[in-house]
């Protein structure tokens, strides 16, 4: 009888865990993704995206929500109750100074309303404009003191205000870096030096979408995962990947008789980006379309072999 060895790696490190609410937790894997013989860790989670100013959204992605996209609370309920999202991710685009320029206080009220409406953990982002986001996220964090929310995002050039708020209110924090393992590590070192505990940090290494640099992200993610398992404490935070940018790829949604139905293709474009993120080490995905979330949930079930 031939005996094929199982080439189990003897890793000295493991992925950290982060609590996302009273009961939910991510991370904890002790091996490369989906190798049960190396150790699976907690289930990978799917966050449904909500934008409080949906005017620039590709309609195909959110057609299933109908009018719910006009109301963040309704939208959140649809994700959590009807579509089985593990988390919701609220992006406060309304605060953009070049757009609706909503005040941090107004935005924080929206967050509080969403938290009251759903029982799943909530991720909150600003609009992407550094100065405004610092104010917005501080207001959001203070308004949600006592709730375990996840604040996005700390960047190399803007992390102090949001980190201070997260520490004061015991919120988890997303450390963003731009497609570079060294920057990802640097970001976590900056946060640790500032006093943020690593079991409150999720790391977002920027997931480039299918056809638009996915391979760079895939390899950066894999290298981060390997470094973490080899014992680099500053890269052991669970990885979060936002795959919604998939809808911006031209080929995802362009009408073309030879490319199949655009809605189906768009959903698969997003799901494929998500699948590559999972296989390369992501623990949480932020997803725009309900169809993509359905495909990805099935994929996680399959990849974990039902565990």
């Amino acid at each position, binding site marked *: 009888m031939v005996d094929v060895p199982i080439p189990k790696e003897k890793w000295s490190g493991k992925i950290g865990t982060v609590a996302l609410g009273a009961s939910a937790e991510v991370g904890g894997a002790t091996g490369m*993704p989906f190798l049960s013989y190396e150790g699976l860790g907690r289930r990978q989670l799917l966050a449904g995206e909500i934008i409080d100013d949906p005017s620039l959204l590709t309609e195909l992605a959110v057609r299933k929500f109908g009018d719910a996209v006009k109301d963040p609370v309704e939208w959140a309920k649809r994700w959590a109750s009807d579509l089985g999202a593990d988390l919701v991710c609220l992006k406060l685009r309304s605060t953009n100074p070049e757009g609706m320029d909503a005040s941090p206080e107004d935005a924080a009220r929206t967050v509080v309303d969403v938290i009251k409406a759903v029982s799943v953990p909530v991720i909150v982002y600003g609009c992407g404009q550094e100065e405004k986001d610092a104010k917005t996220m501080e207001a959001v964090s203070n308004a949600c003191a006592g709730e375990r929310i996840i604040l996005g995002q700390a960047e190399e050039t803007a992390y102090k205000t949001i980190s201070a708020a997260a520490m004061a209110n015991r919120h988890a924090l997303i450390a963003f870096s731009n497609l570079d393992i060294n920057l990802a590590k640097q970001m976590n070192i900056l946060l640790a030096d500032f006093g943020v505990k690593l079991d409150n940090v999720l790391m977002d290494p920027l997931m480039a979408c299918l056809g638009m640099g996915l391979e760079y992200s895939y390899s950066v993610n894999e290298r981060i995962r390997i470094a973490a398992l080899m014992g680099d404490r500053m890269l052991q935070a669970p990885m979060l990947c936002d795959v919604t940018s998939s809808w911006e790829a031209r080929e995802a949604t362009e009408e073309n008789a030879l490319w*199949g139905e655009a809605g189906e293709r768009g959903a698969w474009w997003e799901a494929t980006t998500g699948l*590559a993120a999972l296989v390369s080490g992501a623990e949480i995905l932020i997803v725009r379309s309900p169809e993509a979330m359905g495909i990805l949930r099935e994929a996680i079930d399959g990849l974990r072999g039902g565990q």
Partner: protein
Amino acid sequence: MPTAIEFFKFLPKKNCGKCGFPTCLAFAMQLANSKAKLADCPYVSDEAKAKLEASSAPPIRLVSIGAGSNKVEIGDETELYRHDKKFFHQTRYAIVISDRAADKEIAAKLRRAADLRFERVGQMLAVDMLGVRNDSGDAARFASVVARVARESALPLVLMSPDAAAVRAEASAANLSRPLIYAADESNWEALAAAAKELRFPLAVRHADLNGLAALVEKVHASGVEDMVLDLCPEGLQQVVERNTIVRKNAVKRTFRGLGYPIITNACGNGQAVLMAMVSTMKYGGIVLMDDLDPAHALPLFTLRQNIYTDPQVPLQVKAGLYPINNPGESSPVLFTTNFSLTYFTVAADIEKSRMPAWLLVVDAEGLSVMTAYSAGKLTAESVAEAMRSSGALEKSRREMLIIPGMLARMSGKLQELVGVKIIVGPRESSGISKMLRSL
């Protein structure tokens, strides 16, 4: 792979130069780097050759299927992670036709397979192979469907039949060019292996247990078949990841050499066929068999393969030239960036998002990003000026304005001199383009 010293031991140490290198040691070093062939030395004994060749054989055998320009090659991989070097032979997709299907259905599938072709950043993405499955149990029917498929398509074939007699009948009737026989298992391997050996066709070997598979592969190999492809019989996605990883890792780390062959995954009849194909593509798959493929799934699948199999050392490039975005006209401004695909995609997406019409000039910088290209001297005021001229940018846009990447502010004086239009220094980050375009 043996080291230079291990090679050197077997060399004559005459420094005769007949191998094309000045000394035996120099030759040994080239051998260790796979840059020379042992056969070039006239003095090495056959025994030494056999010994060295066995230890320098690729960890995963290269198997080719079909012939001519459609021939597919799989295997000969050396890495676990693409960032360590690259993945060499991309995953191939086969659409399977049942020999019980009606003629119309067969015609439709052949057309579908032929139509699944997309051009993407200069490469053609397409279905690679066709399978014919002997569901009828009737050798004559199988033969007629295979003959038809071989006549109407030039794609390499997978003959899916457990019956060696059917496979032999097929081969003599249709003059096939090196199809893959699928698949030998515990019950039929002797007959199929004999047929494969005689016909010189590659043979897939199937077993749901890796130990059982290794034993079977050993037997098939002993019977004289060299070109094998392994079916690990995964039932779901996790088994694809796990089994493929075990086989690949054992081969490239040389912890077990008996399964050093490419992998075939049969996703026919599986409700997660597309996901299985995608996971196989990322995780060491050689061939994936599928019942069918919707174009809406094919384009993301093919694009994933293109991404994963990109050489990390050679970035994907887009074609240099002038790209219209948001229907620009004569009054629209020109921006430039490099032909590194990631840079181009980011800049193009940010211009699209601004909803402002503009011309994007893609300058050939050998696929490097803006700063890297500039530092390496691959992106100069002269090359940008030349691109402005050769692309016809100055005729298409009469705005007399060129927006340059913020990081290249230093280039503006020289560029203005060469091109003679107003130079505007854009934002350092592409995300600022939208705001800048709207403020012009």
